[in-house]
């Protein structure tokens, strides 16, 4: 119970801290709008004008992923710069319970990206927000946040070990967008990418959102997204314990 309380309060306070950063706020406001605009024009120039709502949802998911990725990498790096990484790792807790609220907070703030792109699509491009399963869409959005947050934890475990975590985080942005079918259906990608896509929670999260938007079996996709997320949580938790010890050997918890 105390752990759950700590996770909830930690997530809330990290989200509060993120929401007060002018840089984070500017990025959260601008990037999803640019992505939504690009997606809408891409779909229009192709033969997908009837799928504009999918474009908006896909762009929103890209925003959540960008927030989790840059957030997880950036947040660990920021903690290092602020000198708080040592202080939180010094707490008598499992490392996973210390880092999870940080990645969960980035996923929560990333939810804004989904809402912003939908609103942008509605206001500027007149996309009608007609969801096949509105309740399932909400559930899929929550599953995406949880699944991506747990995936972010797995990534964050490596960021604890590396002083230049951003160098690893930045190049991962675009491959995950592509592989997860956030914008382009994974069926058009080379066949060797399919097994990779199948083990990413982002793929199933994107699929759940798309199915909730245009119709289809939403709940199995939500289940798989959460199941893969849970595996990421367990593996990430183990990695964090190992990497935290390694970081104490290599002295990478602090900036210097």
């Amino acid at each position, binding site marked *: 119970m*105390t752990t759950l*309380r*700590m996770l909830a*309060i*930690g997530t809330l*306070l990290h989200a*509060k*801290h993120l929401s*007060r*950063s002018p840089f984070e706020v500017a990025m959260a406001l601008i990037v999803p709008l640019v992505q939504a605009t690009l997606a809408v024009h891409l779909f229009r120039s192709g033969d997908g004008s009837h799928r504009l709502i999918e474009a908006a949802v896909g762009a929103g998911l890209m925003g959540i992923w960008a927030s989790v990725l840059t957030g997880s990498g950036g947040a660990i790096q920021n903690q290092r*710069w*602020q*000198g*708080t990484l*040592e*202080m*939180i*790792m*010094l*707490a*008598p*807790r499992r490392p996973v319970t*210390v880092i999870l609220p940080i990645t969960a907070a980035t996923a929560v703030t990333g939810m804004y990206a989904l809402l912003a792109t939908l609103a942008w699509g509605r206001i500027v491009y007149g996309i009608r927000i007609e969801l096949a399963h509105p309740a399932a869409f909400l559930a899929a959005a929550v599953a995406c946040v949880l699944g991506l947050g747990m995936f972010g934890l797995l990534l964050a475990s490596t960021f604890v070990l590396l002083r230049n975590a951003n160098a690893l985080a930045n190049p991962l942005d675009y491959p995950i967008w592509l592989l997860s079918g956030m914008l382009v259906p994974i069926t058009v990608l080379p066949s060797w990418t399919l097994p990779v896509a199948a083990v990413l929670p982002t793929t199933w999260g994107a699929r759940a959102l798309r199915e909730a938007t245009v119709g289809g079996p939403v709940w199995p996709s939500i289940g798989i997204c959460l199941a893969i997320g849970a595996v990421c949580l367990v593996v990430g938790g183990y990695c964090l314990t190992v990497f935290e*010890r390694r970081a*104490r*050997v*290599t*002295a990478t*918890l*602090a900036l210097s």
Partner: protein
Amino acid sequence: MDSEHTLTAPSPPPPALSPSTRAGSDFAIEAEGLSRTYRTRTGWLRPRLQTVDAVRGVDLSVRRGELFGLLGPNGAGKTTTIKMLNTLLIPSAGTARVGGYDVVTQTREVRRRIGYVFGGDRGLYDRLSGLDNLRYFAELYAVPAREQKRRIAELLELVGLRGREGERVEGYSRGMRQRLHIARGLLHRPEVLFLDEPSIGVDPVAARELRRTVAGLAANGTTIVLTTHYMAEADELCDRIAVIAGGRIQALGTPAELRRRADGRRVLEIEAYGVPDAALAALRELPGVRETAVEARGTQQLLTVQSDTDVDVQGDVLRELSGIRLGRVTSREPTLEDAYVAIVNAS
């Protein structure tokens, strides 16, 4: 073991033992042969491996309730020693126990019993309020929910931040941040508190308040390990002091015992402007001169010359400095700082 390490101090006031104190040990901290080597790699194509021995075999024991000072120049190994004792770094060699628990194998037990406070602007969530910072760390340190409000209020009162807790930390002065650091370090009532240069950059009034708080904690039975550059602070607060230089403990004893290292000496202080290195070298060669040091104070320099008491060196020193613009010249008894300079220079 270095013979200097066996110096014993007059017994400090009996400490208040916590319920979790493990029977059989009078020491809150015990370290044997503690060493730490840093390895860095630079370059990708032709990587170069560099190793730095930051701490080389430190042995120390700190009694429960003792206020123990760790003094040394920059890069001497003070912070590395503290980080090994508080579990942030794993020693390259040697062992250490805090509260009877091993810092490498019983990390979580050690962490439950310690607090860590370091000096400077970093280490806090700037865009959160002081209260939010304390709430978050109270959760991390598993302070029971029903106790948190009362404990945080107590600590805000203790460090003099009551009424300012709702403001964002980014608007706090250096002194206020430092006080918030201390409140955070005390949330879970640690048995051992590590204070790593807590008064760095703090104004004199805030530093005095800080010293009063630290003395109060020690009086209540908290074991404190303090690193500082300020000799007066160490002299006023510490039961015992270890001087560390080059990664090794060079001297250990009470402030009075360390001061005695400068017995038989006299100190000449000269305010000067633009003393060349050649003049300094010449001063060191004068008969009776034991140490020289120069401290820059803006455009002015404070030249300190330690000499044997039975040799009057003032005339010779002033002769060597002829042609250099001088200010006030004073002769005085040696202080702890002079003893410290002598110990560090001899290392």
